[in-house]
């Protein structure tokens, strides 16, 4: 999912980079309103966990792998603004220290994964939460489904970028179909991992899940 330099031309990269900066700046402004000593280490832990989990590619089809994105997980655990900023930190660290994701493409990657994949995925999660009963299983399911769809959304953001300024002259329609198909599979893995982690944290420290709804039915005991 990390775009290298060269796939997308510089003007398009700069445009989406500006949009990414806007999203990051807005997230900083929102996070600054409530960030306290307790949430700093939690958000740092979320960033570290997302970095770690993104290293573990799993096979999704013959000769193709996918890896966890983590935007919705981060948004559900520490809220959308700190979640988007955590993803941004991960992408910067990957691009600068690990040569993963290009440097001129950093704005594209932040736009796709921190803005679309995290803030967009969080909106989906909120929509699902509003429709579902306020129970732990429903919350876990909402997080999982939103996370899976968020991967497809981030993939479609790449297709948009490719349509505007992509190199190599591939047909946008076939790129869209191929990106959608493979990321639907990766989304299933994303949804399962997100549901697993959100479920585990809700079971042990529900008070640390920033975006958990007020539960109608309390947990056992």
């Amino acid at each position, binding site marked *: 999912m990390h775009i290298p330099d060269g796939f997308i031309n510089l003007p398009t990269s700069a445009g989406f980079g500006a949009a990414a900066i806007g999203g990051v700046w807005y997230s900083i402004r929102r996070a600054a309103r409530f960030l306290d000593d307790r949430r700093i*280490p939690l958000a740092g832990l979320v960033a570290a966990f997302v970095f770690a989990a993104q290293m573990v590619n799993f096979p999704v089809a013959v000769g193709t792998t996918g890896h966890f994105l983590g935007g919705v997980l981060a948004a559900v655990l520490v809220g959308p603004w700190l979640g988007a*900023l955590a993803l941004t930190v991960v992408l910067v660290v990957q691009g600068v220290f690990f040569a993963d994701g290009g440097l001129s493409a950093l704005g594209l990657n932040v736009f796709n994964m921190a803005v679309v994949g995290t803030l967009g995925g969080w909106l989906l999660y909120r929509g699902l939460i509003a429709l579902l009963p306020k129970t732990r299983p429903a919350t876990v399911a909402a997080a999982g489904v939103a996370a899976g769809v968020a991967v497809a959304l981030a993939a479609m953001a790449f297709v948009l970028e490719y349509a505007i300024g992509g190199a190599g002259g*591939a047909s946008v329609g076939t790129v869209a179909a191929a990106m959608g198909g493979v990321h639907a599979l990766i989304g299933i893995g994303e949804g399962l991992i997100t549901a697993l982690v959100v479920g585990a944290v809700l079971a042990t420290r529900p008070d640390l899940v920033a975006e958990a709804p007020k539960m109608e039915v309390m947990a056992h005991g």
Partner: protein
Amino acid sequence: MDRRLWWFLGSGLAVALIVAGVLSGFAASDPDGLERVAIDEGFDETADEHPLADSPLADYAVEGVEDERLSTGLAGVIGVAITVVVAGGFFYGIRLYGKARRSREPT
């Protein structure tokens, strides 16, 4: 901060270190979704070499460590440490910024 929160943070960090330090060595190595699409649609050749491709941690391997799994795992542990420091510094800065803003415009 209460002790239970430190427990949570400590176990969470331990999980991250195990995932990045051990599990990463067993990750599948085939191209990821975007790389696969780029290969199939014939635009993978348009990728430029990463400007920092020669850096000591490029591609999640520690320069000079021959054993592949050890190299990946070591890079993962270093990456978790870098992420914690960068994220911690960034979020602490945002907290200071928020404090300064609140003291300027009391609500």
